[in-house]
Protein backbone atom coordinates (compact mmCIF):
# COMPACT_ATOMS: atom_id res chain seq x y z
CA UNK A 1 0.00 0.00 0.00
CA UNK A 2 2.87 2.34 0.84
CA UNK A 3 4.48 1.47 -2.49
CA UNK A 4 1.28 2.12 -4.43
CA UNK A 5 0.83 5.49 -2.69
CA UNK A 6 4.40 6.42 -3.60
CA UNK A 7 3.74 5.35 -7.20
CA UNK A 8 0.61 7.52 -7.34
CA UNK A 9 2.64 10.46 -5.98
CA UNK A 10 5.30 9.92 -8.66
CA UNK A 11 2.63 9.80 -11.40
CA UNK A 12 1.14 13.10 -10.18
CA UNK A 13 4.66 14.51 -10.24
CA UNK A 14 5.19 13.32 -13.83
CA UNK A 15 1.95 14.97 -14.92
CA UNK A 16 2.65 18.28 -13.15
CA UNK A 17 6.33 18.81 -14.02
CA UNK A 18 7.08 20.54 -17.33
CA UNK A 19 10.84 19.84 -17.39
CA UNK A 20 11.30 16.61 -19.37
CA UNK A 21 14.57 15.79 -17.62
CA UNK A 22 12.74 15.55 -14.30
CA UNK A 23 10.02 13.50 -15.99
CA UNK A 24 12.61 10.94 -17.15
CA UNK A 25 14.14 10.71 -13.67
CA UNK A 26 10.67 10.34 -12.11
CA UNK A 27 9.94 7.61 -14.66
CA UNK A 28 13.03 5.76 -13.46
CA UNK A 29 11.84 6.09 -9.85
CA UNK A 30 8.42 4.77 -10.90
CA UNK A 31 10.08 1.74 -12.51
CA UNK A 32 12.08 0.99 -9.37
CA UNK A 33 8.90 1.18 -7.27
CA UNK A 34 7.20 -1.13 -9.77
CA UNK A 35 10.14 -3.55 -9.46
CA UNK A 36 9.74 -3.48 -5.68
CA UNK A 37 6.02 -4.27 -6.05
CA UNK A 38 6.95 -7.26 -8.24
CA UNK A 39 9.44 -8.35 -5.59
CA UNK A 40 6.69 -8.18 -2.95
CA UNK A 41 4.51 -10.32 -5.23
CA UNK A 42 7.33 -12.94 -5.39
CA UNK A 43 7.96 -12.40 -9.10
CA UNK A 44 11.71 -11.95 -8.84
CA UNK A 45 12.44 -12.41 -12.55
CA UNK A 46 9.88 -9.77 -13.52
CA UNK A 47 11.35 -7.44 -10.89
CA UNK A 48 14.82 -7.98 -12.33
CA UNK A 49 13.61 -7.18 -15.84
CA UNK A 50 11.69 -4.12 -14.65
CA UNK A 51 14.69 -2.74 -12.76
CA UNK A 52 17.12 -3.35 -15.64
CA UNK A 53 14.91 -2.35 -18.57
CA UNK A 54 12.42 0.10 -17.08
CA UNK A 55 14.69 1.93 -14.69
CA UNK A 56 18.06 1.36 -16.35
CA UNK A 57 18.13 1.00 -20.12
CA UNK A 58 14.99 2.95 -21.01
CA UNK A 59 15.99 5.86 -18.75
CA UNK A 60 19.35 6.02 -20.52
CA UNK A 61 17.63 5.87 -23.93
CA UNK A 62 15.21 8.64 -22.90
CA UNK A 63 18.12 10.80 -21.74
CA UNK A 64 19.96 10.26 -25.04
CA UNK A 65 16.77 11.27 -26.88
CA UNK A 66 16.51 14.38 -24.69
CA UNK A 67 20.08 15.21 -25.70
CA UNK A 68 18.90 15.23 -29.34
CA UNK A 69 15.78 17.33 -28.68
CA UNK A 70 14.59 20.07 -26.31
CA UNK A 71 14.14 19.44 -22.59
CA UNK A 72 11.18 21.76 -21.96
CA UNK A 73 7.64 20.64 -22.62
CA UNK A 74 5.29 23.09 -24.40
CA UNK A 75 2.33 24.44 -22.48
CA UNK A 76 -0.67 22.47 -23.82
CA UNK A 77 -2.99 24.48 -26.08
CA UNK A 78 -6.14 22.38 -25.66
CA UNK A 79 -8.17 22.01 -22.50
CA UNK A 80 -7.53 18.64 -20.80
CA UNK A 81 -11.26 17.87 -20.39
CA UNK A 82 -11.66 15.37 -23.27
CA UNK A 83 -8.50 13.32 -22.45
CA UNK A 84 -9.49 13.41 -18.76
CA UNK A 85 -12.96 12.11 -19.67
CA UNK A 86 -11.49 9.30 -21.79
CA UNK A 87 -9.05 8.34 -19.03
CA UNK A 88 -11.74 8.29 -16.33
CA UNK A 89 -14.13 6.20 -18.48
CA UNK A 90 -11.35 3.72 -19.33
CA UNK A 91 -10.35 3.47 -15.68
CA UNK A 92 -13.97 2.95 -14.63
CA UNK A 93 -14.39 0.14 -17.21
CA UNK A 94 -11.19 -1.54 -15.94
CA UNK A 95 -12.34 -1.30 -12.31
CA UNK A 96 -15.75 -2.69 -13.37
CA UNK A 97 -13.90 -5.58 -15.04
CA UNK A 98 -12.03 -6.46 -11.85
CA UNK A 99 -15.29 -6.87 -9.88
CA UNK A 100 -15.95 -10.25 -11.54
CA UNK A 101 -12.42 -11.55 -10.89
CA UNK A 102 -11.94 -14.19 -8.18
CA UNK A 103 -10.45 -13.08 -4.88
CA UNK A 104 -6.68 -12.77 -4.61
CA UNK A 105 -4.87 -16.00 -3.75
CA UNK A 106 -7.91 -18.27 -4.02
CA UNK A 107 -7.09 -21.86 -5.04
CA UNK A 108 -9.88 -22.93 -7.41
CA UNK A 109 -9.55 -20.28 -10.13
CA UNK A 110 -9.55 -21.48 -13.79
CA UNK A 111 -5.84 -20.58 -13.94
CA UNK A 112 -4.98 -23.26 -11.37
CA UNK A 113 -7.40 -25.91 -12.66
CA UNK A 114 -6.20 -25.95 -16.28
CA UNK A 115 -2.64 -27.00 -17.23
CA UNK A 116 -0.83 -25.34 -14.32
CA UNK A 117 -1.14 -28.33 -11.98
CA UNK A 118 0.17 -30.67 -14.67
CA UNK A 119 3.24 -28.47 -15.21
CA UNK A 120 3.93 -28.39 -11.47
CA UNK A 121 3.67 -32.18 -11.16
CA UNK A 122 5.42 -33.23 -14.36
CA UNK A 123 8.18 -30.61 -14.67
CA UNK A 124 10.86 -32.56 -12.76
CA UNK A 125 10.13 -36.04 -14.20
CA UNK A 126 9.79 -34.72 -17.77
CA UNK A 127 12.45 -32.01 -17.97
CA UNK A 128 14.58 -32.32 -14.82
CA UNK A 129 14.40 -28.56 -14.26
CA UNK A 130 13.44 -27.49 -10.71
CA UNK A 131 12.44 -23.96 -11.74
CA UNK A 132 9.00 -24.45 -13.29
CA UNK A 133 9.03 -20.94 -14.79
CA UNK A 134 12.08 -21.85 -16.87
CA UNK A 135 10.74 -25.24 -17.93
CA UNK A 136 7.39 -23.74 -18.98
CA UNK A 137 8.99 -20.83 -20.84
CA UNK A 138 11.71 -22.74 -22.64
CA UNK A 139 10.23 -26.21 -23.06
CA UNK A 140 6.45 -26.47 -22.75
CA UNK A 141 5.86 -23.06 -24.29
CA UNK A 142 8.87 -23.05 -26.61
CA UNK A 143 6.89 -21.65 -29.54
CA UNK A 144 5.76 -18.64 -27.50
CA UNK A 145 9.32 -17.88 -26.41
CA UNK A 146 10.54 -18.24 -30.00
CA UNK A 147 7.85 -15.73 -30.97
CA UNK A 148 8.94 -13.35 -28.20
CA UNK A 149 12.56 -13.57 -29.33
CA UNK A 150 11.43 -12.84 -32.88
CA UNK A 151 9.52 -9.78 -31.60
CA UNK A 152 12.70 -8.45 -29.94
CA UNK A 153 14.63 -9.22 -33.14
CA UNK A 154 12.05 -7.33 -35.22
CA UNK A 155 12.07 -4.36 -32.84
CA UNK A 156 15.88 -4.16 -32.94
CA UNK A 157 15.98 -4.36 -36.73
CA UNK A 158 13.25 -1.72 -37.01
CA UNK A 159 15.03 0.77 -34.75
CA UNK A 160 18.33 0.16 -36.55
CA UNK A 161 16.69 0.71 -39.96
CA UNK A 162 15.07 3.98 -38.87
CA UNK A 163 18.05 5.46 -37.01
CA UNK A 164 20.89 4.26 -39.23
CA UNK A 165 19.33 5.38 -42.50
CA UNK A 166 18.65 8.88 -41.31
CA UNK A 167 22.13 9.35 -39.86
CA UNK A 168 23.68 8.18 -43.12
CA UNK A 169 21.52 10.70 -45.00
CA UNK A 170 22.76 13.46 -42.69
CA UNK A 171 26.35 12.39 -43.37
CA UNK A 172 25.80 12.52 -47.11
CA UNK A 173 24.19 15.96 -47.04
CA UNK A 174 26.99 17.32 -44.85
CA UNK A 175 29.51 15.85 -47.29
CA UNK A 176 27.72 17.60 -50.15
CA UNK A 177 27.76 20.86 -48.25
CA UNK A 178 31.47 20.57 -47.67
CA UNK A 179 32.17 19.56 -51.31
Amino acid sequence: MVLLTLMAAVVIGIVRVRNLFSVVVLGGIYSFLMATVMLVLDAVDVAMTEAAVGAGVSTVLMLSVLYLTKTEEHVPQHTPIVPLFVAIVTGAVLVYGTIDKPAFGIADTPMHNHVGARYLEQSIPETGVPNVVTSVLASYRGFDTLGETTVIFTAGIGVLLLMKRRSRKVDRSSDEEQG
Partner: protein
Amino acid sequence: MRLDVIIRVSIKVLLPFILMFGLYVQFHGDYGPGGGFQAGVVAAATVILYAIIFGLAPTKRIIPPLMVEIMIPLGVLIFAGVGVVGLLVGESYLNYSVLAHDQIHGQEWGIFLVEAGVFVTVAGTMVAIFYAFTGRGRS
Protein backbone atom coordinates in the same frame (compact mmCIF):
# COMPACT_ATOMS: atom_id res chain seq x y z
CA MET B 1 35.31 13.78 -17.34
CA ARG B 2 38.70 13.76 -15.57
CA LEU B 3 37.38 14.88 -12.20
CA ASP B 4 34.79 12.19 -11.50
CA VAL B 5 37.31 9.83 -9.92
CA ILE B 6 34.84 8.40 -7.41
CA ILE B 7 32.35 7.38 -10.10
CA ARG B 8 35.06 5.89 -12.31
CA VAL B 9 36.67 3.84 -9.57
CA SER B 10 33.42 2.63 -8.02
CA ILE B 11 31.97 1.67 -11.40
CA LYS B 12 35.19 -0.16 -12.27
CA VAL B 13 34.76 -2.19 -9.09
CA LEU B 14 31.05 -2.80 -9.68
CA LEU B 15 31.08 -3.70 -13.39
CA PRO B 16 32.57 -7.23 -13.10
CA PHE B 17 30.06 -8.09 -10.41
CA ILE B 18 27.14 -6.86 -12.51
CA LEU B 19 28.35 -8.90 -15.50
CA MET B 20 28.92 -11.89 -13.21
CA PHE B 21 25.37 -11.55 -11.87
CA GLY B 22 24.07 -11.51 -15.45
CA LEU B 23 25.93 -14.72 -16.28
CA TYR B 24 24.76 -16.27 -13.00
CA VAL B 25 21.15 -15.46 -13.91
CA GLN B 26 21.77 -17.01 -17.34
CA PHE B 27 23.31 -20.29 -16.26
CA HIS B 28 21.45 -20.70 -12.98
CA GLY B 29 18.05 -20.11 -14.59
CA ASP B 30 17.21 -23.80 -14.24
CA TYR B 31 17.32 -23.58 -10.44
CA GLY B 32 16.75 -19.95 -9.46
CA PRO B 33 14.69 -17.16 -10.96
CA GLY B 34 15.81 -15.79 -14.27
CA GLY B 35 16.77 -16.89 -17.73
CA GLY B 36 17.96 -15.65 -21.06
CA PHE B 37 15.88 -12.49 -21.19
CA GLN B 38 16.87 -11.20 -17.75
CA ALA B 39 20.52 -12.14 -18.25
CA GLY B 40 20.63 -10.44 -21.65
CA VAL B 41 19.18 -7.26 -20.20
CA VAL B 42 21.67 -7.23 -17.31
CA ALA B 43 24.60 -7.84 -19.67
CA ALA B 44 23.42 -5.04 -21.96
CA ALA B 45 23.07 -2.76 -18.92
CA THR B 46 26.72 -3.50 -18.09
CA VAL B 47 27.83 -2.40 -21.55
CA ILE B 48 25.66 0.73 -21.41
CA LEU B 49 26.97 1.65 -17.95
CA TYR B 50 30.53 1.30 -19.23
CA ALA B 51 29.68 3.52 -22.19
CA ILE B 52 28.16 6.20 -19.94
CA ILE B 53 31.22 6.39 -17.71
CA PHE B 54 34.09 5.79 -20.11
CA GLY B 55 32.65 7.15 -23.35
CA LEU B 56 31.26 5.63 -26.52
CA ALA B 57 34.50 5.22 -28.48
CA PRO B 58 36.29 2.86 -26.01
CA THR B 59 33.09 0.82 -25.68
CA LYS B 60 32.84 0.43 -29.44
CA ARG B 61 36.44 -0.81 -29.48
CA ILE B 62 35.59 -3.56 -26.98
CA ILE B 63 32.20 -4.42 -28.47
CA PRO B 64 32.10 -3.35 -32.13
CA PRO B 65 28.68 -2.33 -33.53
CA LEU B 66 29.00 -4.94 -36.29
CA MET B 67 29.26 -7.72 -33.68
CA VAL B 68 26.16 -6.42 -31.92
CA GLU B 69 24.26 -6.31 -35.21
CA ILE B 70 25.27 -9.88 -35.98
CA MET B 71 24.14 -10.96 -32.49
CA ILE B 72 20.52 -9.85 -33.11
CA PRO B 73 19.69 -12.43 -35.84
CA LEU B 74 22.19 -14.98 -34.49
CA GLY B 75 20.16 -15.57 -31.32
CA VAL B 76 16.94 -16.17 -33.27
CA LEU B 77 18.89 -18.54 -35.55
CA ILE B 78 20.19 -20.51 -32.53
CA PHE B 79 16.65 -20.80 -31.15
CA ALA B 80 15.10 -21.78 -34.50
CA GLY B 81 18.04 -24.09 -35.29
CA VAL B 82 17.47 -26.09 -32.11
CA GLY B 83 13.92 -26.64 -33.35
CA VAL B 84 15.13 -27.73 -36.79
CA VAL B 85 17.37 -30.39 -35.21
CA GLY B 86 14.19 -31.99 -33.88
CA LEU B 87 12.70 -31.95 -37.38
CA LEU B 88 15.81 -33.55 -38.93
CA VAL B 89 15.71 -36.50 -36.53
CA GLY B 90 12.06 -37.05 -37.37
CA GLU B 91 10.43 -35.59 -34.27
CA SER B 92 8.30 -32.47 -33.92
CA TYR B 93 9.68 -28.91 -34.09
CA LEU B 94 11.27 -27.67 -30.83
CA ASN B 95 11.24 -31.15 -29.29
CA TYR B 96 14.40 -31.16 -27.17
CA SER B 97 14.24 -34.80 -26.14
CA VAL B 98 16.14 -35.88 -29.25
CA LEU B 99 19.21 -33.75 -28.44
CA ALA B 100 20.79 -36.32 -26.10
CA HIS B 101 20.61 -39.99 -25.28
CA ASP B 102 17.70 -39.64 -22.85
CA GLN B 103 14.85 -37.23 -22.35
CA ILE B 104 16.09 -35.39 -19.25
CA HIS B 105 19.49 -34.60 -20.75
CA GLY B 106 17.90 -33.64 -24.06
CA GLN B 107 15.62 -31.19 -22.28
CA GLU B 108 18.59 -29.81 -20.36
CA TRP B 109 20.55 -29.20 -23.56
CA GLY B 110 17.53 -27.79 -25.38
CA ILE B 111 16.69 -25.32 -22.61
CA PHE B 112 20.36 -24.33 -22.33
CA LEU B 113 20.69 -23.64 -26.07
CA VAL B 114 17.36 -21.87 -26.31
CA GLU B 115 18.17 -19.61 -23.35
CA ALA B 116 21.55 -18.87 -24.94
CA GLY B 117 19.73 -17.81 -28.11
CA VAL B 118 17.39 -15.52 -26.16
CA PHE B 119 20.40 -14.04 -24.31
CA VAL B 120 22.28 -13.29 -27.53
CA THR B 121 19.31 -11.62 -29.21
CA VAL B 122 18.23 -9.57 -26.19
CA ALA B 123 21.71 -8.33 -25.32
CA GLY B 124 22.47 -7.56 -28.98
CA THR B 125 19.23 -5.66 -29.50
CA MET B 126 19.58 -3.56 -26.35
CA VAL B 127 23.17 -2.53 -27.12
CA ALA B 128 22.37 -1.95 -30.81
CA ILE B 129 19.47 0.38 -29.95
CA PHE B 130 21.71 2.20 -27.47
CA TYR B 131 24.42 2.62 -30.11
CA ALA B 132 21.86 3.83 -32.65
CA PHE B 133 20.52 6.52 -30.33
CA THR B 134 23.80 7.76 -28.90
CA GLY B 135 25.71 7.53 -32.18
CA ARG B 136 23.78 10.47 -33.62
CA GLY B 137 25.14 13.88 -32.82
CA ARG B 138 22.90 16.88 -32.12
CA SER B 139 21.59 17.85 -35.55
